[in-house]
């Protein structure tokens, strides 16, 4: 009964939905950044500009890690 009440409270809690929504948004974005990294790898194979290509790849990786880290922090804090 107590569990059901807690679930009921959570279900109708707007804040809970907002948190869940933010979590899904960040997760979706992390997937998107992963796609960017794969595309950078593909494009670097097609065309290479010595050091700059590596820098672009590093930036894409940083972007992916930033999104992953934010998702992890969201899971822990919210």
């Amino acid at each position, binding site marked *: 009964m107590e569990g059901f009440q807690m679930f009921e409270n959570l279900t109708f809690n707007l804040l809970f939905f907002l948190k869940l929504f933010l979590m899904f948004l960040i997760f979706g974005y992390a997937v998107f950044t992963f796609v960017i990294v794969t595309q950078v790898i593909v*494009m670097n194979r097609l*065309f290479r500009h010595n050091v700059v290509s590596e820098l672009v790849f590093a930036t894409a990786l940083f972007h992916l890690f930033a999104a992953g880290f934010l998702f992890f922090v969201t899971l822990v804090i919210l």
Partner: protein
Amino acid sequence: MPDVFTPKENSKLASQKNIASLAYSVLGTTKTKNVHPFSSYCELPKDISFQSQSHDEVVLLFTRRHFITNLGWILTTLLLILFPAFFGFIIQAFDQARIPLPPQFIVLSILFYFLVVFGYAFMNFLTWFYNVLIVTQKEIVDIDYSHLVYHNVAATNVNLVEDVNYTQAGFIRGIFNYGDVYVQTAGGKENIEALAIPKPARVSKIILNLIGHGGLPNV
């Protein structure tokens, strides 16, 4: 009397000399140059290569969209960076207590917002960075990249090029000297377009010079 046998090193040296003389007659120089990260035009670039490049193929010309065409998304990014400060100022000016969200939720939302803004700028940079036109002594390669998962590579042999023309319409294009170059190829081959590239007249002249030489398919 012609030589029946020529040592490999001699033929390599001869092909290098051929390429150098071709580069000089097409570009007027044999000096190679470094390409900086935001460069959109370079003749005889040192550090550019592409997937289908053969070992004896030299990049004569490398070009992509003029950097000034990035001004739109750079300004948008700057506005998006400033927006939260402006938004926060407005909220403070009215009523702070009307937002009953926990502080950690607000901090995470702001961090996520800045990450998305960074992603927006990065995607636009990638679209500019990977849209390139490469001219070698053998072929013309047009690499197009857009919409995240779409890329198209069009390559044509220099011998198949029939005509080259360019358009440069508009005040801004005139000031910054950039325009569109169209390379028409023989038969049913795909035509090559290079849009908003710097020095379109020079690029079309270089390709026309190359057609005049018929490329160097066997060097």
